[in-house]
């Protein structure tokens, strides 16, 4: 074996540990800051051990309402963000699996045109059509609504392409057998296709949940009211270096609360997430 090199392995461990420290330190530092009082935060260097204001800061941010964002509590921002992430993940999976099903298991006029129409949306991210999209949303009265925050993000080519790719690997005999047994398209979809797609759906769920949770430009454009915005945008509004009254201890708490839920999802569903990411994006 070539790997039998204890010194090389030792160096590898050291480098990995340094890597983990670089990756984890900014998050740990913010957590430490979130347990300190405002005065302690404003007086660097900060202690590297958590302080004793944990409950005080977290309950103040969560339920007390934050002055800089019009007295809205972080609990409300968290609720909005959870709604957004879940609705986008579930909606996107539902919409994509249906259209991929249509494209792979049916023959009908215009099939390839529809496929290309969906594919081309890959090339039209929000960033390249900011103003006109905003105008459409205003005209439809969707600003500051959950529909506006979620519905337009539910259509995208990536999930459809993924399901299409997976459906194409399902042998035709399976469809034939189902038809011989008298199963219609709905039965086939519900009893055969959905169970087979379970792993793909789980993987996609993690990726899309993170996608929804970490949105920035979209909620920035679509929300004016502080009680309708997401935690990431709320956090941005809480920070100002010019003003002396930024409540940094609450900022740190909000930051940790904005990071922890998606990290938990990635960690707990790691197996599906890693497979999904590496296999689907290739």
């Amino acid at each position, binding site marked *: 074996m070539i790997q039998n090199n204890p010194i090389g392995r030792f160096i590898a461990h050291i480098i*990995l540990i340094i890597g983990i420290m670089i990756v984890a330190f900014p998050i740990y*530092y913010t957590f430490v800051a979130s347990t300190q009082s405002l005065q302690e935060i404003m007086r660097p*260097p900060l202690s590297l051990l958590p302080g004793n204001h944990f409950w005080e800061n977290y309950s103040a941010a969560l339920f007390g309402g934050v002055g800089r964002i019009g007295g809205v509590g972080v609990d409300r921002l968290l609720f909005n963000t959870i709604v957004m992430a879940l609705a986008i993940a579930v909606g996107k999976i539902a919409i994509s699996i249906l259209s991929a099903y249509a494209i*792979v298991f049916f023959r009908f006029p215009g099939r390839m045109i529809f496929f290309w129409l969906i594919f081309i949306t890959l090339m039209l991210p929000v960033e390249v*059509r900011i103003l006109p999209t905003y105008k459409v949303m205003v005209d439809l009265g969707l600003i500051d609504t959950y529909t506006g925050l979620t519905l*337009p993000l539910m259509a995208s080519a990536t999930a459809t392409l993924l399901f299409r790719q997976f459906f194409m690997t399902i042998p035709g005999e399976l469809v034939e057998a189902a038809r011989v047994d008298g199963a219609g398209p709905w039965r086939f979809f519900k009893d055969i296709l959905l169970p087979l797609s379970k792993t793909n759906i789980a993987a996609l769920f993690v990726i899309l949940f993170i996608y929804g949770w970490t949105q*920035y430009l979209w909620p920035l454009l679509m929300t004016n009211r502080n009680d309708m915005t997401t935690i990431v945008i709320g956090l941005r509004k809480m920070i100002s270096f010019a003003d002396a009254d930024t409540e940094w201890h609450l900022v740190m708490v909000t930051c940790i609360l904005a990071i922890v839920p998606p990290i938990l999802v*990635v960690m707990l569903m790691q197996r599906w997430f890693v497979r999904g990411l590496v296999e689907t994006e290739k």
Partner: protein
Amino acid sequence: MASSTRVTFPNKLLPYLLLAPQLAITAIFFYWPASQAIYQSVLREDPFGLSTQFVGLDNFRRVISDPNYVNSLQVTVIFSVATALIAMALALLLAVMADKVIRGKGIYRTLLIWPYAVAPAIAGMLWLFLFNPSMGTLAYLVRSAGYNWDPLLNGDQAMVLVVSAAAWKQISYNFLFFVAGLQSIPKSLIEAAAIDGAGETKRFWTIIFPLLAPTTFFLLVVNTVYAFFDTFGIIHAVTGGGPGKATETLVYKVYNDGFVNLILGDSAAQSVILMIIVIGLTAIQFRYVERKVHYG
């Protein structure tokens, strides 16, 4: 693929119903605004929005000859290249190390994938907490060492800060792909080279690195797209394009010109230029994926 011999269902209306939700959303929220962007890019509107006039490619000419636009193009290129290189180099180093160790592989992976779940804007804020001159502990240490550190005033330092945050966030993603890429290299090949007397460094550069080329190329495209588009949050939350215009990327400028300064025609022209860039990047990505499907 044997798509012509695929067994299908005979329904005529059902497939249209199945496609309807996606097509409706796509038409209303993607195609309609995108066509509006193209339409507005050839119009000139007066400041009061009372009259509009067809001006052909004038908006494009003005945008391209605007020194601020050229500056923001340069900023974007520097930002993207630096972010992609740093994020990929660190990820590759960590992946090669993780491939070497026998114990603790799983733990290392678990601890390295955190930042994937962190929103880019929040990644930027985390780094800002560490490095802002008024309260950041690391900024305090850098300043105590006698170095004049103030990313809120110095453009180059602001760039260093946003690049660090953007690269930090992307390490996990690249790491997972490099680990997968390394696993797919046949061990026998590396052992054969070892038997022929190739040292570790030589084995890496002559065998492992070339065989990783498809992964590296794929990641290069993905990281470029990320740096161009997904990092808007970092710029908006950390520097606001400043100080001066030192960190104003193309996407930030479109947002700023259109949404904040309300220069409609120019913003639309910039949108169309960005669209062309995305189309180019996507085409490269899919050409490459196609090739991989056929020969890989």
